[in-house]
């Protein structure tokens, strides 16, 4: 994204940032325990829809944010990476729960020690599993980040998508 300091551009960027942060279509990559709290965050008591993030899209093409929810084992890791690659720009990744942040206490032969070893992560939500409040907090921090990235034009450019044949 070319960044110029003109008033109009910066306002436009602000607006796009605003739009993107309040329209978060998520791809929930739910694998494990954290999924229960992910459900809870979406349910009536917490209602993630208030943040404009209530519409999970189960097609990576349409999702803006990849929520990686739950332990990622070595067996599923390539799938996760593929889904990330299939997502359309701009995209963000949220590591949900300690297993995705760092691998947590499943430090053994089967698990990936943190998804940031296989894809870039924008926001980490620790907790095992994180309470929905923590999830909402993480979502708000992600919104802040999205807005800030657009206001300052620092949305990182990612490595080009490999041409996946699906």
């Amino acid at each position, binding site marked *: 994204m070319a960044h110029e300091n003109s008033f109009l551009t910066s306002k436009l960027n602000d607006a796009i940032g605003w739009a993107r942060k309040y329209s978060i279509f998520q791809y929930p990559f739910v694998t494990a325990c954290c999924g229960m709290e992910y459900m809870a965050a979406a349910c009536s008591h917490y209602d993630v829809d208030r943040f404009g993030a209530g519409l999970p899209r189960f097609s990576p093409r349409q999702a803006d944010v990849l929520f990686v929810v739950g332990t990622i084992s070595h067996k599923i890791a390539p799938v996760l990476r593929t889904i990330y690659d299939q997502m359309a720009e701009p995209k963000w990744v949220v590591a949900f729960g300690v297993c995705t942040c760092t691998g947590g*206490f499943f430090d053994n032969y089967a698990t990936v020690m943190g998804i940031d070893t296989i894809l870039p992560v924008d926001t980490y939500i620790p907790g095992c599993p994180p*309470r929905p*409040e*923590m999830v909402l907090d993480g979502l708000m921090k992600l919104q802040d*980040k999205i807005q800030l990235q657009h206001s300052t034009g620092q949305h990182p450019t990612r490595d080009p998508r490999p041409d996946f044949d699906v």
Partner: protein
Amino acid sequence: MATKVVRRPELTFWEKLYLPQIYCGLKITFRHFFKNLGLHIAHRLGRLKHLRASITYQYPEELRPLMSRYRSRHRLTLRDDKTPRCVGCMLCETVCPAKCITIVPGEHPDPHVEKYPIRFDIDLGICVYCGYCVEVCPEDAIRMDTGILDLAAYSREAMRLDIHELMDPELRKPVNDCSLTFPHTCKVHGGDMKGSWDGIAKTAD
């Protein structure tokens, strides 16, 4: 053996026509809809405040009451002289199933204390909130009662708490992005620690 055969509802002819049940279903959903709509309007008008219109807790403006036993972020309790009560016995480091606690003990000038932690880190990125550290602490030095829930971070490093943050839950590291710096503060409490213990005690039922 008391077994109870579950009765499969025999649908009547009417029910087989779909419509009556659609009507029944709609009745329920409409009831919810209009009740909630009415209550929302009433709230706007300042009426019926004691009834909840929706059960949603609007975090962060409104915090759901935490149960008193709820295990949230850790803190280290302090002596009267503001030093940590921890004597670095490392039972918590030992018992921690996630190995997220790192303690380096040192010699305390007071021979009756003898030992204190030079370094006490908890990596929240690994912690599984099992509460074993609190349970085994023989000094009542570590507690998980801060009620702090805004723990999301932009990097692994930001999730690591050092002894200062653990001793003073109000001290929050500014949240750093890889290249961006801005303080993320919780708007409700003006950047203060959220849900201090007193706050929790009041709100818990």
